């Protein structure tokens, strides 16, 4: 199944990265980046089918598309910033990793503002 492949590639890449660590630490980071990309590309089919399913139910319940797309963007931003932050931590640069996470959080807050404002407007209308 897919999981066996993912575990195999992950262990192999970790093994190679450990071999290269003392000799060439720069190349071992590249190996971990390449492994992360390969594993994500293997998962595309599954993620996009989940997204399509959510999209069809979103249309069925005719919820506004804005909410769903912002939600997806937030998930994407969270994934990418976590991906980069972990790689920076592996490379020993935890300061840069926290900066990347800070950036991700700020962008997510900015993206969430329109939803929060619409919620607050709704609450204000309801209040007597």
């Amino acid at each position, binding site marked *: 199944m897919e999981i066996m492949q993912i575990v195999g*590639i992950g262990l*192999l*890449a970790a093994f*190679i990265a450990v*071999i*290269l660590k003392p*000799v*060439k630490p*720069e*190349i*071992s980071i*590249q*190996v971990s*980046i*390449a*492994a992360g*990309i*390969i594993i*994500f*590309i*293997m998962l*595309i089919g599954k*993620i*996009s089918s989940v*997204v399509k399913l959510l999209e069809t139910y979103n249309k069925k319940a005719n919820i506004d598309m804005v909410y769903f*797309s912002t939600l*997806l*963007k937030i*998930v*994407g*931003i969270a*994934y*990418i910033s976590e991906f980069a932050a972990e790689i920076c931590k592996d490379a020993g640069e935890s300061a840069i990793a926290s900066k990347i996470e800070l950036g991700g959080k700020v962008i997510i807050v900015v993206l969430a503002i329109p939803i929060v404002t619409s919620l607050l407007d709704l609450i204000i209308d309801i209040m007597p």
Partner: protein
Amino acid sequence: MELELIFRIAAIGILLSIVNSILEKSDKKELIPLANLTGIIIVIIMLVPHIREFFDTIKTIFLF
């Protein structure tokens, strides 16, 4: 199916370390940083299209 990329990067890394030790033995020590740099640049050039494809797929999936 993409294992070949990992093996290629590993091969370049090991090759680089061999080149380094050769340069050390034939006391051309000043060439070592140069060899390191070229090796890393080669690996980066190999990785860039994959990273671009990675970002493009994220854009399409997460409706950026």
